[in-house]
């Protein structure tokens, strides 16, 4: 654990270096990096609503980072988190929304809130796992490269839910392709108040993210399944020789990864938008890959990286709204950061090799 945390200092150094580079770029376009930094901090933490937004944005980033990292530990590169979260979001929405309950008879969401929320979360998780399971099954039964399969499945998922949300039985009245709004009892409640009057609440999706985080830590730290997944990730042939059912573990890895991705979708639907909206995700699934890389596949690292990206996002919006620095500067910062992390990892590996 401590050794792993030491590895995180690589990311910290990379952040520092990226900050310096981007400050120079900002100076070069004739703006003041200090003013930009101030807008960033103010946008991310300046007031209860902004803190709430930052916390809320960190939830999907943490979860999708965990989804990518989990698969990565098992030797699989799940690029399909984006598609899996869409499928999960749609499943959660139709279970929770009054449209679905109308066809089912009694108003599910309004009648029994907590049960409806739980059912919707389970639906999202199951759907996400199923979608990832397609790529997992192709990999374990036929040896199809999961990178290709998950990328393809992303598009299929996006267009499939885009088609479904426009069907008369799911689409809400109005011009926007979205499902009907979920009744107040079917939404994720606020967790704790951030403003004095309690008007701004932190989303209880935080609890979902924390639970998932602990589950992943337990999986890899304490369970046999986690050990075997890691063994397969390190060396499939050795794992097979040791009697680990490699094919089964590959499928299970994808299922677990997809389940977390589905949870991202469920949280977005139940806690943020309160409905499914076509194209709602600003690329959470792809950001998850960056976050897993930045957090070096370590759960604590992923949380830190997710909060960093979430704060940058809130800050970028503020910067765009009130200064003349284009928000693309934040994209530049993130890209430089990732480049440094990747490069630093390479340098470290070489230095390590020389020492031994």
């Amino acid at each position, binding site marked *: 654990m401590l050794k792993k945390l*030491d590895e995180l*200092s690589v990311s*910290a*150094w990379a952040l*520092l270096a990226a900050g310096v580079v981007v400050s120079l770029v900002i100076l070069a376009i004739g703006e003041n990096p*200090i*003013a930009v*930094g*101030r807008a960033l*901090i*103010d*946008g991310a933490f300046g*007031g209860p*609503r902004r803190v709430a*937004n930052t916390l809320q944005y960190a939830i999907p980033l943490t979860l999708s980072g965990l989804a990518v990292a989990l698969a990565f530990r098992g030797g699989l590169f799940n690029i399909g988190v984006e598609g899996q979260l869409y499928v999960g979001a749609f499943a959660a929405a139709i279970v929770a929304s009054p449209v679905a309950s109308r066809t089912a008879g009694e108003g599910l969401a309004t009648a029994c809130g907590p049960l409806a929320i739980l059912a919707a979360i389970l639906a999202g998780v199951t759907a996400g796992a199923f979608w990832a399971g397609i790529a997992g099954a192709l990999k374990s039964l036929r040896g199809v490269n999961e990178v290709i399969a998950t990328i393809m499945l992303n598009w299929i998922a996006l267009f499939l839910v*885009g088609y479904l949300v*426009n069907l008369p039985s799911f689409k809400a009245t109005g*011009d*926007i*392709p979205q499902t009907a709004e979920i009744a107040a009892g079917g939404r994720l409640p606020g967790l704790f108040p951030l403003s004095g009057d309690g008007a701004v609440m932190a989303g209880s999706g935080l609890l979902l993210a924390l639970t998932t985080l602990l589950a992943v830590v337990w999986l890899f730290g304490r369970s046999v399944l986690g050990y075997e997944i890691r063994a397969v990730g390190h060396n499939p042939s050795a794992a097979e020789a040791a009697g680990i059912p490699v094919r089964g573990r590959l499928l299970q890895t994808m299922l677990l990864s997809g389940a977390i991705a589905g949870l991202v979708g469920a949280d977005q639907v139940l806690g*943020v*938008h309160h409905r499914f*909206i*076509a*194209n*709602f*995700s*600003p690329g959470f699934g792809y950001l998850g890959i960056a976050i897993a890389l930045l957090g070096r596949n370590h759960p604590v690292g992923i949380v830190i990286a997710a909060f960093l990206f979430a704060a940058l996002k*809130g800050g970028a*919006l*503020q910067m*765009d*709204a*009130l200064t003349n620095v284009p*928000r693309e500067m934040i994209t530049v910062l993130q890209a430089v950061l990732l480049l440094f992390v990747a490069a630093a990892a390479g340098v470290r590996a070489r230095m390590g090799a020389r020492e031994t």
Partner: protein
Amino acid sequence: MLMKRLLVATAAAIALWSWWDYRAGAADSSGLTGPRRRIAVVLSVGGLGDKSFNDSAYEGLLRAVRELGIEEAHGEPADIAEPAEFLDVYAEEGYDLIIGVGFLMKDAVEKAARSHPDRKFALIDAPIDPREYPNCASLLFSEHEGSFLVGALAAMASKSGRVGFVGGMDIPLIHKFKVGYAEGARHVNPECEVLVRYAGAGPDAFHDPVKGKAMAETLFSQGVDVIYHASGSTGNGVIQAAAEHGKLAIGVDANQNYMKPGHVLTSMLKRVDVAVCETIRAVCEERFQGRVCVFGLKEGGIGYAMDEHNRALVTSPMQERVEALKAKILAGEIRVTDYLEVQRGK
């Protein structure tokens, strides 16, 4: 170990410095409130550079800066959750008027108007009930009237008696353009056929030029020789196709005649810039009201574009005829169907 200590020390120094700097900044920014009005515009997804809807709104804002001396800010949302955040940021920063561009922002503007009752809001292209939101104005346009006029011009210019329409999203707001256009075309030539295509069902349908071009080519192959588009930057593909196939296109929202001179018959002008600038003027003159404002032919909010790029395409008899139609609409002798009104009546 030394590296680690160095890292911690640097991080601590940066944290301390940025906190100090932040405090200093917070102190001096409080003295910035002057008599100048501060106005913010939140653009629709797609942002600046669409040569159409968003650019037109931004132009109105810039004109207000020149003519009224306001201080402006504008935000370009990158995803569907951001319009609401931009509205909140501007409201919290004390902007006097915050304008949301596009019907997709309706829920977000209503929510912001509710949580910031002391700020003024305006929304373009969708009605908000002023009884429920007294601090919110809706800026609507009589697109059906302008579409009628360009429809008449299309029928006059068409040799085949077949004209086309390319819409962005297949939704009532776009049907309003189509119905007015078809009425105008049939007013001039009762035999005129109007062939219709839509780019899709989601907001992406408004920025897909490749699809616009493909749809225009299909329409041309069906004998159409003039196409009117109401599809944001998807229409750039329609105009491109018209130029490549030697046919005619009709622009929308902003004056798009210049994009392919000789191939853009005219443009249906929807003066979002006028609506934005006039609403800001109302705020500056302390006469802003939460109400539904309609910008039509009469108010100069709607029209058709004539300039050096299409002078050769619209002959003077054509222009005289369309001017006569315009006068008849203004006099109430021709009543163009407003599809949205028909929908509401149902």
